[in-house]
């Protein structure tokens, strides 16, 4: 405290201003939780925590609400989108930093960043009008032909392909998060000192060996950071998936079936929710999403910090 008081007036004011700016963030988060908890208290009392999380039913008419289907949809689309986006974006980053001719680097790099600037509603409309028909007419029947007869895996592609399903939603989501992972990975790869790379080449390493053994280990942390950022985005993305997921509260094994995510349920039903318990249940869903994203990001951050420490040693 004394340290502050001894400062000249200007510095003191600046310290206070910047302190209150930083403190606002904390207050915002806390008050968000408080409001969410307060608004959802009716549903919390009525359904309890575990009962709510494990109930699949979502029936506004009979006023039975459960989060299981939405949670399932959120997790599946996020995992699927990440597993499509991670390899693609790391490929993009490697190409841009190590393989591509200089002339191509800037235009492709800008194009990737532009992809991140497209509003998500545009992705949603594009998904509904362009991607969904293509999925329904060509890609999904083809997938069914190839995988349909294989036991277990075939179950993933059951049903009539209509283009409104988990797979389409995950693909759109993966396109949305690709720029995050790609551009952060590219910057991380670029930080690898040329000296180290050149030493490896001098020892006779091939390009692939340099990428695998020098560049990627060196920039692992940056890549993880990009993935965590993308994960947060994927968990909370709303409009892009709202149009192509169908908002159907069910737990389905088939990827070619409609489902719901927490954000999709909120976007579809919040404006018209008229009974108190309905509205409260929607707030409860939002609270669960908040806690879920918070936990997932905290865990990711924890591993990131641990990796960082390990790396510095």
């Amino acid at each position, binding site marked *: 405290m004394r340290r502050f008081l001894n400062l000249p007036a200007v510095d003191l004011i600046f310290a206070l201003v910047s302190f209150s700016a930083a403190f606002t963030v904390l207050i915002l988060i806390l008050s968000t939780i408080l409001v969410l908890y307060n608004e959802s208290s009716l549903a919390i009392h009525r359904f309890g925590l575990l009962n709510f999380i494990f109930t699949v*039913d*979502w*029936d*506004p*008419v*009979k006023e039975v609400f459960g989060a299981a289907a939405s949670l399932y949809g959120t997790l599946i689309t996020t995992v699927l989108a990440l597993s499509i986006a991670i390899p693609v974006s790391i490929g993009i980053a490697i190409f841009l930093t190590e393989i591509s001719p200089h002339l191509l680097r800037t235009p492709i790099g800008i194009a990737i960043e532009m992809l991140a600037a497209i509003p998500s509603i545009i992705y949603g409309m594009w998904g*509904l*009008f362009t991607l969904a*028909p293509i999925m*329904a007419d060509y890609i999904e029947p083809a997938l069914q032909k190839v995988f349909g007869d294989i036991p277990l895996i075939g179950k993933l592609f059951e049903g*009539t392909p*209509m283009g*409104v399903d988990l797979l389409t939603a995950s693909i759109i989501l993966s396109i949305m998060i690709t720029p995050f992972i790609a551009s952060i990975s590219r910057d991380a790869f670029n930080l690898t000192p040329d000296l180290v790379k050149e030493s490896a080449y001098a020892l006779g390493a091939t390009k692939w060996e340099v990428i695998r053994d020098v560049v990627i280990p060196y920039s692992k942390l940056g890549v993880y950071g990009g993935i965590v950022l993308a994960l947060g985005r994927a968990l909370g993305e709303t409009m892009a998936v*709202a*149009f192509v*997921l*169908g*908002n*159907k*509260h069910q737990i389905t094994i088939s990827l070619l079936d*409609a489902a719901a995510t927490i954000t999709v349920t909120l*976007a*579809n*039903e*919040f*404006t*018209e*929710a*008229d009974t108190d318990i309905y*509205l409260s249940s929607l707030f409860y869903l939002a609270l669960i999403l908040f806690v879920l994203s918070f936990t997932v990001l905290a865990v990711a951050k924890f591993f990131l910090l641990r990796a960082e420490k390990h790396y510095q040693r």
Partner: protein
Amino acid sequence: MKKLTVSFLAVGFFTAGIADETINGAGATFPYPVYAAWAYMYYKETGIKVNYQSIGSGGGIRQIKNRTVDFGASDAPLEPQKLDEYKLYQFPAIIGGVVPVVNIPGVKAGQLKLDGETICHIYLGEIKYWDNEKVKALNPELDLPHKEIRVVHRADASGTTAIFTNYLVQVCPEWKEKVGAGKAVKWPVGIGGKGNEGVANYVKRLKYSIGYVEFAYAKQNRLKYTLLKNQAGKFVAPSIETFKAAGATAEFDPEKHFYLWMVNAPGENAWPIAGASFILEARERKEVNKKVNRFFKWAFEKGDEVAVKLDYVPLPKELKEKVYNYWKKHDIYPE
């Protein structure tokens, strides 16, 4: 910089100056185009601004309940007990119709005939193919294919769904028992499209599909609508006339604050799936209500033409009279 501040202040005072000439409303999205058109015309004629935000019926009800707007709007009527609890008045302002649309190659608009029970069993998933006995019996002259029916419904909660499911509840006891009526229900079968545009898009794209949309969407997207058997036993096509007939024969009761689902109306020519959109006002604010009602009275008198142009159905004369009397009775009639 100083100049900028001054001009900002000036703007602030200026807007504050006309603020009392503004009527604020919020609610249902379905009547938004027509309320906006009315508001624009009203402003040009009287200089009074009507600011209507289409945030959804649920939001409209909440805002008028908390008294943050001058009037709320809802596609679904509130029950009289609810109105007493929230201390609100309610009256209808505009009528709209919901239309079943199909995509069956070879079947033209207005050719397929359906009745409430058939639609109900299609949406329950019990009628699975287009050449089902019940569908065939209604359409002896059509050659219906043995193809699976692809059912499309709304993914989001909406007044359109509320009107449609209330109709099914009225005509089909099984629906009432298994699903019920509401803005969002637990659909037994089918895929969900977001918004009217989502449903219209799926029905256009998916062969052998059936869906339901607002009349304006069916008309503007040239979707193939079906004929429906009404309560009088006649097959009718969706049009402004048949919606009007539904509005004229529906028994709105001012004693119950017009609480009524306008479905399955008894008229000879009435389209069975129609619904009114309602205005909600706070009971204790007589002066504000008069201001709001002056706007709606003006709209009832001069706004019919533009409403029809936008594919909405103006209230029939008898119903307008009922609304005026309702206002007079509660002392909120604009002089």
